[in-house]
Each structure stands twice: as structure tokens, then as C-alpha cells.
């Protein structure tokens, strides 16, 4: 029963206005779903449902293509 309290609620299901923000042009918002190294954080960590995690992953990959988001960040260079 204790586990049931640890379940995370998807932020996009709580607030429907956020769904519009899943777009490669909103790269500042998409940065929330990246680690410091530039990796995509898995849905089971952030609590995003599979449906929106698929969309986020697609849009992050588009933003990477147009150099709005990094493919990888080397923390040693900073």
C-alpha cells in the first residue's frame, strides 16, 4: 500500500494547457526533460505518461537537429 503513494501523476494530464508546449520551438520547456549531459530523462523518472513521453522524445530530437538543444554536453568543458 505504501507504494501507491509514490505513484507520480503525469503533468500533461493534470494541466492540459501544457500539451501545446510539446513543440521543438519551445526548447526552453523541453530542457526540463533533459539531463545535464543532454540525455532524455525516462518517463518513469519524470512521471510523464507513455503517450506524451513519445511526443516529447520526438520534439527533442527535432530541436537537436536544428541546434536548439544539444546532442550531448560534456560537463568537463564547463
Amino acid at each position, binding site marked *: 500500500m505504501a507504494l501507491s503513494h509514490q505513484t507520480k501523476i503525469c503533468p500533461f494530464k493534470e494541466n492540459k494547457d501544457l500539451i501545446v508546449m510539446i513543440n*521543438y*520551438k519551445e526548447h526552453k520547456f523541453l530542457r526540463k526533460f533533459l539531463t545535464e549531459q543532454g540525455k532524455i530523462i525516462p518517463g518513469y523518472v519524470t512521471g510523464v505518461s507513455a503517450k506524451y513521453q513519445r511526443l516529447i522524445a520526438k520534439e527533442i530530437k527535432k530541436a537537436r537537429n*536544428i541546434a536548439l538543444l544539444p546532442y550531448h554536453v560534456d560537463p568537463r568543458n564547463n
Partner: protein
Amino acid sequence: MLYYESMYIVHPALEAGRLKDLILSIEKSLHSLGGETCALNVWGKKKLAYPINKEKYGMYVLFQFKNDGVKNKEFNLGLEHNSNVLAYLTTKIEDDTILSDLPSLDSQLGLLNPNTKESKDTDNEIKTTKEVVEEKISETKENSEEKVSEEEIKKTETEIVSDTKEEK
């Protein structure tokens, strides 16, 4: 006819005049393929997440248009062969995401020129601040005068009252 948008990064060394020519030439290439422009938005100079062709900065331009999907390949090829375009991305969009109420291309590019417009603006701002300060000084002077006059009136009133009391 479907709606598409293509975002491309222009070489940062291009001046506003040459940048406008490039944007218009890309627009013209779309028109020659039978497309229609919907919106043009210049994001301005931004830092790239990773260097492209050894460039750390780039000018981002967002171009939304209506076109036959089959012709997009030729349009993308034009961007690919343009040496001033560092990168580009063409995606399909819905018609409700098209930007509206954008200023004209000239004003968008004019805002990017810091040497011409901003200096004028700062001059105006300095002038206005000077004027405001002068106005404030004059207002405070007037207020102080008014206060003095009011105090004098009160004093005279109290004197008169005291005088009348003494007489009684």
C-alpha cells in the same frame, strides 16, 4: 495544399540587407514551386547548442507556408545547396498554429540592428528622463511654495484668533 513550416539557420556574418535578400530569394524559390507564404518570423541571432561549420552563433528564421507536399523535396534541396544556410528543418503543421499579427520583415530586421535604432531610442530616453526630472523639480518647487503659503495663512489665522481672544 498542406501547411508546412521550415526553420533555417542563416550564417551570422550576413548583414541586415543581405539577410533580407536571402530570405526573399528563399521565398521566391517557394513561389516558383507553386507555394504560398503564410508567415515569416525572424528570431534573431542565437547561440547554437553545438557548432555548425565552426560557427557558434546563427540567425534563426521561421518560415511558414502552404505548399504541395511533393514539391517540398525540391525546396529543401534549394536550402541544402545554399552556402549561407547552416541548417534547416521542414515540418508539417496544422493551420491553427500559423502565426499572425507579425510585423513586416523590414521592421523585424530593423529591430535586429543595434547601431541604428537603439542609439536613437536611448537618446530619446535620456531626453525624456531629463524632462521628467525637470518637471519633478518644478512640481516640488510649486508644492513647497503652496505649503509655505498654506502655513502662512494658518499662522495668520491663529494670530488673528489669539488677537481677538486677547482683546476679549
